[in-house]
C-alpha cells in the first residue's frame, strides 16, 4: 500500500514537472513581446557566446588541474588523480557565479548611490567602449560623486558635545573590531579572558554611547530643505523605537519564559497553548483596532504609542524560545540554591539571568531587526516628516511624488542598511544559534 502511494506520489510529481516544462513555460515565453525598446542592446543568440565563454573557463580549469597534478606527481613520485582539483576549481567557479548573483543588487544600488544623474530611467545609453556598460548591465562608474549622500546630510547641525559622543562611540566600536580581529588571530575563544571581557565592555560602552546620542538628537538640528535632509533624523527615530522595543521584548519575555520553564503550576499547558495560538492571528490585521486603542490613549504620533503597538508582536515567540533555552540548562544549581533558602526571584536574577545573556541578545536583536525594517504600522501611527522611520522614508523615495529619486533612494538604502548589516554580521553567531537552538527542537 505504502509502495503504491509512493509511486503515485512520484507519478504526480512527474506530471507536475512535465506540465510546468511543456505547458506553463512555453505559455510564459509566449507572453514576451518580440520588440526592443530604444536603447536596449540585444544580441541575437548571445547565449551561445556566453555558454562558449563558460566552457572555455571550464576547459582552462581542467587544463590547470591536469598540469598542476602532473607537475606535483612528477615531483613527489606519486600517482594522484587530477579530478579532485577539477572539482575544487569548478566549485570555486560556481561560488563565484553565486556571489555575482548575490551581490549584483548590492553593486547596482552602490553604483546608483554615487551617481548624481539618476540614471535608472534614462533612455540614452552611457558612452563607453565596454559593451556591458553600454547595455547597462554593469553600472557606469564614469561620474562618481557624493552628491546624493550630501543631500541626505544637507543642513544637519551636530552640536559639539554630540560630536564628542559620536567620536567616543566610534572609538569603542573600533576597539571592539580590533579586539575581535586580534582574538581570532591568537585563537582566543574564551569570552571570560581579559581581552574578551574588554571587548564585551567596549561593546556595552558603544551601545550606551550611541543610545545617548540617539536620545539627544533633536528635530531642531535638521535645517535642510526637502524631506531627504531629514534622513539622519529618520535613522535616529528608527534606532530609538527599535532599541526600546527590543528592550521591552526582553523584559516581557524573560520572566514569562522562566515561569513556563521552571514552575509547575496548574494551567501551565493551557497558557502555553494560548500563547502559541494568539501568535497565529495575522498580527497587523488588528491594525485598525490597535489604532483605535492607541488613539483613545492619546498616544497617536508618539514613539510610545508605536512601541506599545509593536510590543505584542514578539511576546509569544520570545517566551517560547527562552523557555526552550532554560529547559536545556541543568536544574541542579537552582535546586541547591532553593534548598539553601533562596527565593524563586533570587534564583532567577542571580543564577539564570547571567547565564541567559546570549538568549536575551538573540531576542533583543530579533525584535530590533524586525522593527527596524517595519513600515506599515509606522506609516499608520506616525505623521509628519519629523517622526518618520527609515522604512517610511525609503518608501517615500520610490512611491508618490518622489518616484524618480532613485539616486537618493540608493544612498539612503546604503546608509540605512548599515546598522542592520553591522548588527547581523557582528552577532551572526547569536542569530544562527538562536534560530536553531530555541525555535526548533531537534
Amino acid at each position, binding site marked *: 500500500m505504502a509502495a503504491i502511494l509512493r509511486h503515485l506520489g512520484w507519478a504526480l510529481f512527474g506530471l507536475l514537472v512535465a506540465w510546468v516544462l511543456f505547458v506553463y513555460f512555453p505559455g510564459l515565453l509566449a507572453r514576451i513581446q518580440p520588440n526592443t525598446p530604444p536603447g536596449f542592446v540585444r544580441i541575437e543568440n548571445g547565449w551561445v557566446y556566453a555558454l562558449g565563454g563558460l566552457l572555455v573557463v571550464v576547459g582552462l580549469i581542467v587544463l590547470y588541474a591536469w598540469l598542476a597534478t602532473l607537475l606535483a606527481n612528477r615531483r613527489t613520485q606519486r600517482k594522484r588523480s587530477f579530478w579532485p582539483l577539477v572539482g575544487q576549481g569548478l566549485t570555486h567557479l560556481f561560488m563565484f557565479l553565486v556571489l555575482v548573483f548575490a551581490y549584483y543588487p548590492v553593486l547596482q544600488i552602490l553604483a546608483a548611490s554615487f551617481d548624481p544623474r539618476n540614471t535608472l530611467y534614462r533612455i540614452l545609453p552611457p558612452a563607453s567602449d565596454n559593451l556591458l556598460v553600454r547595455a547597462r548591465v554593469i553600472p557606469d562608474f564614469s561620474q562618481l560623486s557624493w552628491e546624493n549622500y550630501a543631500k541626505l546630510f544637507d543642513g544637519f547641525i551636530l552640536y559639539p558635545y554630540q560630536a564628542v559622543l559620536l567620536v567616543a562611540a566610534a572609538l569603542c566600536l573600533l576597539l571592539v573590531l580590533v579586539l575581535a580581529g586580534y582574538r581570532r588571530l591568537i585563537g582566543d575563544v574564551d569570552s571570560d579572558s581579559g581581552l574578551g571581557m574588554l571587548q564585551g565592555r567596549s561593546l556595552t560602552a558603544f551601545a550606551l554611547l550611541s543610545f545617548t546620542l540617539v536620545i539627544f538628537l533633536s528635530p531642531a538640528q535638521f535645517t535642510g530643505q526637502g524631506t531627504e535632509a531629514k534622513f539622519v533624523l529618520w535613522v535616529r527615530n528608527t534606532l530609538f523605537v527599535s532599541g526600546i522595543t527590543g528592550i521591552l521584548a526582553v523584559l516581557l519575555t524573560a520572566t514569562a519564559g522562566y515561569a513556563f520553564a521552571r514552575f509547575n503550576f*496548574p494551567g501551565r499547558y493551557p497558557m502555553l497553548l494560548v500563547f502559541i495560538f494568539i501568535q497565529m492571528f495575522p498580527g497587523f490585521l488588528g491594525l485598525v483596532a490597535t489604532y483605535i486603542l492607541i488613539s483613545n490613549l492619546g498616544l497617536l504620533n508618539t514613539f510610545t504609542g508605536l512601541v506599545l503597538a509593536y*510590543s505584542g508582536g514578539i511576546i509569544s515567540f520570545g517566551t517560547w524560545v527562552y523557555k526552550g533555552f532554560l529547559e536545556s540548562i541543568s536544574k541542579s544549581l537552582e535546586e541547591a540554591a532553593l534548598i539553601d533558602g533562596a527565593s524563586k526571584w533570587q534564583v532567577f536574577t542571580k543564577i539564570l539571568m547571567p547565564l541567559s545573556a546570549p538568549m536575551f541578545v538573540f531576542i533583543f536583536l530579533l525584535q530590533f531587526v524586525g522593527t527596524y525594517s517595519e513600515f506599515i504600522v509606522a506609516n499608520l501611527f506616525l505623521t509628519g516628516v519629523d517622526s518618520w522611520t527609515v522604512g517610511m522614508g525609503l518608501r517615500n523615495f520610490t512611491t508618490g511624488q518622489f518616484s524618480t529619486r532613485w539616486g537618493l533612494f540608493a544612498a539612503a538604502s546604503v546608509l540605512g542598511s548599515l546598522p542592520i548589516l553591522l548588527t547581523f554580521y557582528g552577532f551572526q553567531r547569536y542569530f544562527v544559534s538562536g534560530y536553531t537552538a530555541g525555535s526548533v527542537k*531537534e
Partner: protein
Amino acid sequence: MYRSPPGARGFLIAIGLLGGALTVAALAGLLLFWALQAAFPRPVEEGYPGYLILIFGTLVLIPILVVLGRRVPYLTDWYYLLPAITFLLAFTVFPIILTIYYAFTDYTGIRNGKPDRSTETAIVRVEGRELFVEGNAHDLLRCDQPDCAGQALEITTRTQRARVRVEQASGNTITLTAPPPFAPTLVYKINEFRFIGFRNFVEIFSRAGTVLIPVLLWNIIFAAGAVVVGAIPGLILGLMLNNKNLALRGFYRTALIISWAIPVVISVQIFTAMLNVQFGPINRLLGLLGAYPIPWLTDPEWFKVSALLISLWLGFPYWMTATLGALSTIPEDVYEAAKIDGANGFQTLTGITLPLLRQPFIPLLLGSFAFNFNNFGLIYLMGPQPGVEGRPSTAQAGDILITWAYKTAFQADGGQAYGLGGAISILIFFLTVAISLINFRFTGALREVR
C-alpha cells in the same frame, strides 16, 4: 513553601483572581480619569491624555497585587507571567476581538463610528429634549433618514461631550430620545457602522470562483514555491561548503549571507527597480544573451515568477546556514565507516547525508512555509500589480490572502472596507492555525511541552 490547589480548580482560581485584579484596576483607572475630568474640566480639543488611565490603573494594580500575593501565596507564580499576559491582552487579544467584531459589521473608512466634523452645526437653544438649530436640521446634519429618526449625534460644549440619539427632526428642531446631560452648543452627526451578520463572509464566498480560490491557490503555490526555490539552492550550497578541503570556505559562507542581512524593505525595492521591463539591468543582461525584454512586473504570470525569483535571492542564505548547522551535528565516524565499506561520494550523499538531514529539515520547511504563506512584505513591496480581468483592484495577479486583506482594509481603492478585511483576516487565521497544527503534528512540539 506554598502549594497551589491542583488541577482545573487551581487554574480557575488563579485566572479568576488575576482577571479580577486587572478588571478592578482598569475600572479604577477609568473612574479616576473621569473624576479628574469632572473635577478640573479642560477644553474638549485639549482634554486629558488617555494614557493617564493606564498610569492610574497601574498605580491601583500594584497594591492589589501585593495584598493578593500575601493572602494567596501560590498566585506569585503567576506574577512572572503577568507582564507578558497584560501586554498580550491589551495589544494583541483586544485588537483581535475587535477585528472579529468588525468582521460582522459594515465598518469602512466613511462609516467609522466617529463624528463627522463637516456636519458641525451650532445649537441656538435647548428646551428639554429639543435642540434648535439655524436652518433645516436634516440638511445641516445630512441624516440618512428623512426625519433623522434613530440618528446618532455628538453634542459638545467647550469642556464636555456626549453621544445622544435622535427621536425625530423636523425643520429647525431636533427631538432627542432623552434630555441632554448638559446644555450643548455644537452638534455633529456620527457616521455609525452597523452589525450586518455574515454578509461580509457571504460576499467573499459568493465571488469565491473569481477571487478567493485563485488567490488562495496562488498563495499556496507561492508559499510552497518560495520554500523550494530557497531550500534547494541553499541545500546544494551548504553541501558544497561543508567540504573541509575547500579553500575560502569561511569567506564564501560569510559573504553569501548578505541577502539575509539586508532589510527586506530595501532589498525588495531594489529588485523591483532591477526588474523594470525597459530599464532594469536584469532585462539588459538577458538582452545580451539574446532575449527580448521580459515583462517581469507588468505581466500577471511573470509577476509570479518574479516573486519566486526574489524569494530565491532572499531565502537561500537561511537554508545554506541551516544545512551547514545540521551537517555539523553529523558525526565524522559515520562517513569514515562508509568510506571503509567502499561507498563513493554519491552513495554517501544519498545514503547518509540526505536521510540524516531529513529530520532537522522537516520543521524548518514547515516553518518556512507558514512564514511565506503570510509573507506580506515581499508581495506588498513589489508595488503595483498587473491587473487581471474580473478581479477587484485589491486582489490582482500576485496578491496573496494577506495583501488582499490589507488592501481591502486600508487602501482607498478598496473602499477602506475594514469589516470585509477583518473577515478575510479570520479566514487567514484559520488557515494559519491549520498549517501550524500540521507543523506541530510533525514536530511533536506540543507533546514535548506536556
